[in-house]
């Protein structure tokens, strides 16, 4: 069958099982947009290419399937760079297809030409510049393979316009040809035994759970392992939901704005069972002072993560789900003796005491009647149907979202952890809703973030993708304001945004959303209930929250995790 390269691309996406792509057409990608008309693949027309990238990420995070975005060359490619960098940091499988100028024009500074493969080399797992239409099916198959196997991540295919127009003989490859790419998925048996032995001997162990557990679909296996070992669990910002917050062994999030108990339990532990986490600086604080007495079991599918930040006593390269299953088997076999729950009893008592003494707190009944952002998130969480997905931007609202929402399922918390991309929430929520139309999708957003990507709510309205946005409007770039207050002697530099410029309600309505403004605590629950009833349109609730509110606990930058600042609620104790 003779078809064009563009037809071959669309057909290859169909063969790959793609049901939706996020994109925006333009000159160099024009040939590809013609066969899209005839394809069963749903195309969602975004308003900015960055939105297409984040939607693909949101889709992938909600479904564990690869998200796909198609954009044109030059400025479109550079617009999607942020999403690629974001997906690379957080190991999100997305496939981005960019148009490119004709092969004969490459290198001539042609109109809308950019060195896309060069620019994206260090923020993709791999990228391809296709020079001949016959390569297209092979490259598409390889691109999806690379994006979704091993440590997942973004890939990019750069497709010159003349290659799209070139005729080729259609084929679908049986296999990939990647001699240098063989991710190791099974843990080494000797390491598994060594890990089992450490687990049995530990008196103060903690499970340190990262996003890898969600990417590998290991939540159920993890629950079995945790309950078998009876060991407390912390879930990182990327790992929220991998283990249920409602479980008695869950201590919540560790790190800079984690719970006192999660931070301190890690810090004082004698064994960190690290599954799919990477000792990020926001988790460890000052690395040289991090968990000084802890032995480390470190399981990761990416060998480069083992020993990158902290030397592991037992490093295990493998898919965390398979390794968890292997660990369960090794413990069941009793290779290193039976599990003795009594040796951790003192530890559990200590952890429980920390939980009782230092819970997450905020002023629940402020005398001045101000609206606390933490209260908003708490109400959102309580009123949300089971399995609701929460997307988030980056900043204070993200931390409150992670702290005060109860995550009980994997793939229900979608945020930008590693790169910290402001404006992530709205497009990511839209992508998540496209992937999981059966679920309610809320986004918690800040006023700074909202102004970066709000235009995608036009996409949501036009494409009938109903998402709900809780905009915590404190009229500031709040996290930056918090740092200026605490570390720059209250010298506020360029952080004030104004509460009513723009008018968020009018703006949301102009984009086809239902919009509400909430200014008092009394209105919070009724308005959220109203929003939860609306299923045919997107909803924006603007909450005018107390601008003075800061995120606590906090481990100041550069400090060790022994120096947790608990905040005003614990002053005078």
């Amino acid at each position, binding site marked *: 069958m003779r078809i064009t390269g563009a037809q071959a691309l669309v057909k290859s996406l169909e063969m790959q099982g793609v049901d939706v792509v996020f994109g925006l057409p333009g000159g160099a990608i024009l040939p590809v947009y013609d066969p899209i008309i005839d394809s069963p693949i749903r195309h969602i027309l975004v308003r900015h290419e960055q939105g297409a990238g984040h939607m693909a990420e949101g889709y992938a995070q909600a479904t564990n399937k690869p998200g796909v975005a198609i954009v044109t060359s030059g400025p479109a490619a550079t617009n999607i760079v942020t999403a690629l960098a974001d997906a690379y940091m957080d190991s999100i499988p997305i496939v981005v297809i960019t148009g490119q100028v004709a092969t004969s024009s490459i290198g001539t500074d042609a109109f809308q030409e950019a060195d896309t*493969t*060069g620019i994206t*080399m*260090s923020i993709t*797992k*791999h990228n391809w*510049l296709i*020079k001949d239409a016959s390569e297209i099916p092979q490259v598409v198959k390889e691109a999806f393979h*690379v994006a979704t196997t091993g440590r997942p991540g973004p890939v990019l295919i750069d497709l010159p316009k003349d290659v799209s127009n070139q005729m080729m003989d259609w084929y679908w490859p049986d296999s990939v040809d*990647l*001699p*240098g*790419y063989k991710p190791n998925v099974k843990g080494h048996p000797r390491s598994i035994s060594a890990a089992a032995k450490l687990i049995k001997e530990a008196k103060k162990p903690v499970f340190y759970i990262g996003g890898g557990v969600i990417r590998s679909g290991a939540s159920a296996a993890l629950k079995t392992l945790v309950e078998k070992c009876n060991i407390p669990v912390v879930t990182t910002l990327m790992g929220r939901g991998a283990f249920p917050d409602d479980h008695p062994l869950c201590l919540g999030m560790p790190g800079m704005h984690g719970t006192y108990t999660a931070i301190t339990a890690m810090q004082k532990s004698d064994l960190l069972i690290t599954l799919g986490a990477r000792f990020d600086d926001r988790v460890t604080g000052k690395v040289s002072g991090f968990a000084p007495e802890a032995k480390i079991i470190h399981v990761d599918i*990416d*060998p*480069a993560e*083992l*020993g*990158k930040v902290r030397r592991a006593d037992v490093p295990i390269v493998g898919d965390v789900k398979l390794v968890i299953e292997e660990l369960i088997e090794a413990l069941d076999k009793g290779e290193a003796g039976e599990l003795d729950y009594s040796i951790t009893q003192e530890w559990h008592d200590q952890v429980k005491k920390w939980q009782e003494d230092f819970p997450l707190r905020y002023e629940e009944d402020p005398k001045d009647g101000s609206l606390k952002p933490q209260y908003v998130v708490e109400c959102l969480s309580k009123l949300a149907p089971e399995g609701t997905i929460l997307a988030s931007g980056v900043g204070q609202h993200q931390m409150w979202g992670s702290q005060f929402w109860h995550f009980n399922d994997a793939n229900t918390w979608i945020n930008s952890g590693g790169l910290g991309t402001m404006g992530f929430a709205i497009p990511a929520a839209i992508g998540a809703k496209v992937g999981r139309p059966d679920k309610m999708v809320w986004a918690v957003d800040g006023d700074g973030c909202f102004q970066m990507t709000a235009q995608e709510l036009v996409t949501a309205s036009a494409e009938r993708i109903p998402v709900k946005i809780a905009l915590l409007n404190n009229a500031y770039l709040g996290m930056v304001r918090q740092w200026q207050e605490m570390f720059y002697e209250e010298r506020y530099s360029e952080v004030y945004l104004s509460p009513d410029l723009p008018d968020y309600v009018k703006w949301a309505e102009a984009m086809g959303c239902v919009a509400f403004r909430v200014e008092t605590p009394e209105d919070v629950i009724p308005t959220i209930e109203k929003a939860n009833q609306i299923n045919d349109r997107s909803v924006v609730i603007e909450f005018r929250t107390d601008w003075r509110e800061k995120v606590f606990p906090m481990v100041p930058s550069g400090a060790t995790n022994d120096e947790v600042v608990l905040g005003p609620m614990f002053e005078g104790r």
Partner: protein
Amino acid sequence: MTNASPNLIPMSMPGGKSSTEFGYHVLSVLVENKAGVLARVAQLFSRRGYSIYSLAVAPTDDERFSRLTVVVDLESVTLEQITKQLHKLINVIKITEIDPRESVQQELLLAIVAADTQSRSQIMELAGIFGAKVIDVGLERLTLALADTPDRLDDFTGLIKVFGIIEVQRTGRVALTKLARPSTRGGMNRGKAS
């Protein structure tokens, strides 16, 4: 091979130390011979903050693959982290660390040396001792070529400096692991290749 006595060679000159004393490691990296592969390797080094001391690249006998010989400066980062990050590149097939004692290493040097009628014969004599070739001759200059171990090139450079080097160009080393062979005299095979 030349039979120059080791005591002819001044060992104290800069660059005269062996690679490991300087914290250098030699990696032999087999890569797929695809467009941009060198850029990927180079960008990885710069992105992760590793420094390349020298880099040589050429296709192997199998045209699908190329071999890079990278000499890396290990001041700031472990060799393990570099090799693991390199392995993450999809086009990297195999990475071998080349132990200087267990490998053969060669590098090519081209040097233009000032050579008037008085010094010319001395220079040619020195070239002869080192096995360097005279590959170009001008009125007042000679161009010499020497392929040998990096240490020997350092030594040679130090000696011809006396006559006045106009320009010098080195390729960076290429290296392969020594062939296994039955040892008849204990550790003698582990001696310096010369």
